[in-house]
């Protein structure tokens, strides 16, 4: 179906709580330039730009792609702006890929960013509306009850979330772009960190980061001759379901299962845990790792936590999850999904540096957003299909 598409360039900024050295334009440009350098290309080689970010209110700029057109060399080109809540980095990548797969463009630059330090994100997300739920306890207050349901149903022991938090922060030490670099992280430190939204502890949550990620996607003939090995797209999928309705399963949402089934079918994957070598999965709160292991079909329902407990999701496990440190270590919200997709691509390109999983040939990038209702996934391979 469609043209073959490869990731030929990847650029990331250093993620930090505040990038005071760069404007918003400077931030996206830093990622864009690095992606172009990786692909050995110049701005003029790009046919179109697809940009994504989470709500405009995070920076206080309405439809910022208009202002960013110059910085991203988009003048005279098509430019699209995607917004699908927290999954936006993933959906932005998929929209960019479809422009190549549909045969419309040869090379597309895709960028996702968030510069949360430029505005008051708490304000942006909790602008008081008279009739919305009056208890606004933030994203943690929304997801913590789902986690509690998961713990109750699966009978998972309390320490699982802490294991995930520890593993991802240790992985982050091998990723120079990662925001959190916690040399002294330990289970004891995590356990001693304050409860924010019980059962979620402070060190089991993601940070708030400034950052941008960019990728250059190219059609087969160009990707084949790229200076560095491309990551070939063998499946892309998006699924959405409503936020709330009677009988909705919030812990193991159908949209996620359907999205995984779709992307696996495209990639010819029948046993995901065996067929996929490494996965970058959107885990903003530690307990979402075991939850998504089940949703993605890596484990039977109720047993995802055992993968974490047995070390299967660690760098040296059989199913390494978030070798980059994941969302728990860097979270420029609008970019977080694209970082998952890009890190999956880096793994199969063999370019993940110190957090490279040896021999990674097939990788999954995963993003979700809203009330666990927007899902985006892609599967990339080192070998051209």
């Amino acid at each position, binding site marked *: 179906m469609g043209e073959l598409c490869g990731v030929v360039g990847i650029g990331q900024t250093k993620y930090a709580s505040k990038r005071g050295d760069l404007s918003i334009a400077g931030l996206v440009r830093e990622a864009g330039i690095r992606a172009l350098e990786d692909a050995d290309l110049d701005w003029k080689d790009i046919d179109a730009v697809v940009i994504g970010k989470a709500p405009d209110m995070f920076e206080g700029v309405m439809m910022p792609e208009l202002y960013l057109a110059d910085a991203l060399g988009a003048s005279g080109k098509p430019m699209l702006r995607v917004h699908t809540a927290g999954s936006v980095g993933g959906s932005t990548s998929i929209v960019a890929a479809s422009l190549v797969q549909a045969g419309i463009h040869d090379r597309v630059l895709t960028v996702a960013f968030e510069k949360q330090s430029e505005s008051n994100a708490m304000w942006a997300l909790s602008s008081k509306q*008279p009739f919305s739920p009056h208890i606004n306890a933030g994203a943690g207050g929304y997801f913590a009850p789902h986690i509690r349901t998961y713990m109750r149903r699966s009978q998972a022991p309390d320490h699982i979330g802490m294991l995930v938090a520890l593993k991802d922060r240790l992985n982050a030490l091998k990723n120079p772009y990662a925001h959190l670099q916690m040399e002294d992280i330990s289970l004891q430190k995590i356990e001693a960190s304050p409860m924010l*939204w019980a059962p979620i502890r402070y060190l089991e949550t993601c940070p708030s980061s400034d950052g941008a990620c960019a990728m250059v996607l190219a059609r087969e003939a160009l990707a084949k001759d790229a200076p560095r090995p491309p990551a070939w797209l063998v499946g892309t999928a998006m699924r959405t379901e409503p936020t709330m309705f*009677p009988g909705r399963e919030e812990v193991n949402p159908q949209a996620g299962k359907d999205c995984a089934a779709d992307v696996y079918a495209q990639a010819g994957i029948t046993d995901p845990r065996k067929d996929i070598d490494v996965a970058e999965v959107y885990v903003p709160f530690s307990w979402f790792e075991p939850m998504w292991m089940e949703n993605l079909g890596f484990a039977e329902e109720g047993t995802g936590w055992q993968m974490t407990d047995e070390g299967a999701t660690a760098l040296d496990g059989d199913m390494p999850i978030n070798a980059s440190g994941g969302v728990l270590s860097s979270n420029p919200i609008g970019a977080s999904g694209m970082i998952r997709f890009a890190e999956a691509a880096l793994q199969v390109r063999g370019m993940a540096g110190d957090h490279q999983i040896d021999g990674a040939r097939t990788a999954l990038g995963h993003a979700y957003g809203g009330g666990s209702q927007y899902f985006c996934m892609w599967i990339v391979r080192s070998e051209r299909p």
Partner: protein
Amino acid sequence: MENPVEEIQTPIRLDYQYTAGEATARFLRGLKQGRILGQRCPSCRNVIVPARGACARCGVATKEEVELPDVGTVTTFCVVHIPVPGSAVKPPFVCATIKLDGADIGLFHLVGGIPPDQVRAGMRVKAQWKPREEWDYTLENILYFTPMDEPDVELDDPRSSAHA
């Protein structure tokens, strides 16, 4: 450069007049009278509260009004230990999903009148209303839900508890 400018403050103020929508307005008018109004979906027959004017699952408009009791069951919850900006509620407090008797979807609210570490999923609770003279067009007319003297109930999987 000496004294480089790294930051400027550009305050943004915009005023909006939000529209609740017809269904939500009816729900809020009900609360003003101390009533909790849901709607029944004509297609799947589930009762949705707060009334939203549409069934998200079936994509059809919902019109049939169903008045619900102010008692229900905690299906899940979390204990919030950090203050919420602009909120008078002091941490730690319990945010819970409460399935009112006769409703097929949970209502998000507070649980109080019990130490947070004693709240359980499956616990039966009843609304603690503010004094009648303080009622307004808001769910805040209910201060929180408080435990009832009833045994906990076994929780179903949400997928099986709603009408298919």
